[in-house]
């Protein structure tokens, strides 16, 4: 049932190359989920998210200082190792400094015909950020038009918005099935869904999701659900870790808060006569990345809501090593969760997760929730 999604994720480069050949259109790599994919779909450009390769690498040392997060280095390594040589362009929307550095180094050393830095505002809680972002989107749209040589009409934008919104809606509907007492899909499977949606043509992805939605309600996992866990924090596409927690340790992830997970698709845009403003509003109003979550910590409320809606029993908080924005939120998150009596486990992620040392932490954490059996 999930084979297709897994294949998309695993063979992402083959897919993109093939798509390019099939469509004769351009492929753009993006570094952060604040990039307005609506505009790219409107321009018939395929946006693919640049993620790491999860293998130790030694090519970024000349370019990125060691105190920068392993994810940003892993991402740059993909570029330097020419894994994405098919890209016609790269783009980033302003978020954290770390991933920005991966983008700028890529820009310097693997130049593409189109490279765009979109100053997505940080102060999303200010009313002025919408107007500002709208003006920036206008500039971005013009730049894309110039690049592709085609004007993007309102009808194009409507199409782009619809493709992306449909994808968000379908993913959310599937995720909501995880609220059931026995979720029909594992956290790992859910992960494949979201990750693959970031690297395939969403029109195809939407079709596959619709088919999945027909079959899912009847499905049962071949094992007990075990503890209902939430995983939250920075970027996470560590499949082996998820597999270990679910298949070796016997728990199930029922929800997440990652930019590679729910934060990517959670909110749809609200229709507006001014399409660019509609898009701007969506990115201003979406579940924020911690870099943009101030002066209020709005993500905290969102996380608590997810915990209630998904009947979460325990939370694994993960963080890419050296990820400052998350490090600045984690103590506040842990404090709130502690207050609610939700056990949490904190883990620091690197390019490859040391499964041995992690396993003992996860087992001890689950045991803490289960240990009445031992007495």
């Amino acid at each position, binding site marked *: 049932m999930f084979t297709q999604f897994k294949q998309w994720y695993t063979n992402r480069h083959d897919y993109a190359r093939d798509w390019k050949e099939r469509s004769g259109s351009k492929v753009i790599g993006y570094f952060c989920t604040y990039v307005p994919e609506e505009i790219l779909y409107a321009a018939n450009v395929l946006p693919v998210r640049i993620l790491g390769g999860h293998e130790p690498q030694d090519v970024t040392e000349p370019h990125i200082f060691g105190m920068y997060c392993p994810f940003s280095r892993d991402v740059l390594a993909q570029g330097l190792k020419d894994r994405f040589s098919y890209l016609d362009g790269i783009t980033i929307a302003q978020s954290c400094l770390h991933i920005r550095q991966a983008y700028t180094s890529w820009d310097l050393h693997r130049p593409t015909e189109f490279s765009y830095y979109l100053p997505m505002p940080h102060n999303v809680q200010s009313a002025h950020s919408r107007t500002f972002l709208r003006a920036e989107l206008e500039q971005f749209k013009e730049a894309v038009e110039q690049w592709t040589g085609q004007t993007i009409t309102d009808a194009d934008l409507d199409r782009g918005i619809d493709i992306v919104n449909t994808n968000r809606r379908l993913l959310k509907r599937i995720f909501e099935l995880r609220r059931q007492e026995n979720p029909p899909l594992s956290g790992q499977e859910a992960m494949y869904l979201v990750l693959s949606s970031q690297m395939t043509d969403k029109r195809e992805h939407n079709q596959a999701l619709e088919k999945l939605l027909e079959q899912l309600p009847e499905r049962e996992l071949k094992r007990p659900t075990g503890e209902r866990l939430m995983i939250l924090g920075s970027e996470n596409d560590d499949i082996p870790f998820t597999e270990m927690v679910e298949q070796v340790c*016997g728990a199930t992830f029922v929800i997440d808060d990652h930019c590679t997970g729910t934060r990517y698709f959670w909110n749809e845009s609200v229709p507006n006569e001014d399409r660019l403003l509609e898009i701007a509003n969506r990115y201003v109003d979406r579940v924020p990345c911690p870099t943009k979550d101030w002066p209020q910590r709005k993500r905290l409320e969102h996380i608590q809501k997810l915990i209630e809606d998904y009947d979460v029993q325990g939370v694994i908080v993960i963080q890419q*090593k050296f990820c400052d924005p998350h490090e600045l939120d984690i103590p506040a998150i842990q404090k709130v969760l502690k207050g609610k009596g939700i*056990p949490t486990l*904190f*883990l*620091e992620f690197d390019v490859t997760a040391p499964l*041995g*040392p992690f396993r*003992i*932490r996860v*087992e*001890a*954490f689950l*045991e*803490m929730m289960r*240990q*009445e059996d*031992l*007495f």
Partner: protein
Amino acid sequence: MNENETKEYWRWKEYNWKNPDIPDWRGSLVTAGVDVGSTSSQAVIMVDGELYAFSNMRTGSDSPSSALDAINWAMEGTGLTLNDIRFTVGTGYGRVNVPFADKAVTEIACHARGANFMYGPTVRTLLDMGGQDCKAIHCDERGKVTSFLMNDKCAAGTGRGMEVFANLLAVPIEDVGAMSLSVEEEPAPVSSTCVVFAKTEATGLLRAGWSKEKVLAAYCSAMASRVVSLLERNGMEKDFAITGGIAKNPGVVKRIERILGVEALKPIYDTQIAGALGGALFAKALAAKAGKDKSAPQGKMAGR
């Protein structure tokens, strides 16, 4: 110096012990806990919930045989055979590789349970300084874990770090603590948190004319402040106890107590057996539960 390399100052004494107050185990409930750690292994045998025998040795490169060696050594002279043990819990790094265990439990739960037995039900905060990791554990009056925290970024504050130092300074590991306490004035802690660089720093200090005692004091002090940070972050509550090999090092323990302003409970057993002891206690509870349901199979299966 050549001699130092081969002499292995880090190598602590391996031994076994049998409780002289329990003459015989026959007719009683015999349970065991086997802790196969990254550096050391222990086996504890309990008779009706009383500590009967244990062994404490270094882990070999193969955990199933380390587990067997440990239990065999603990059974030495008791007349016990593996078949006489009703229930065995495996714990530690090699917990799923204890071939004769009925269940695997993490060392975090086992240490808390073991400490509860060793120090009594008032223990709330536990510091386990093992070979390669260091854990701050919070538990309730039954020895149930309520929260725990393990060192993530760095290995400073682990037993292995101390072994490296013992070797570097050619001081037998048992003497490190006492020697570090013999300084007249407490030096500033070594600044490096990395075991390798702390070693380089120590070499530099020795060259600069520091005595071995002073260097050890600086290292013990750095180690103490690292683990205190772990304890504080996990939440510090009295009573406080330390388990694991480092608990035997007064140089670190005294400094932890000094920084925290709290005295650690004094151990009456070997602090290294806490994990295996907790395992044997869980084994007793599990054997009792299994006993209620006679139809339950008594499989000698590893893992869950």
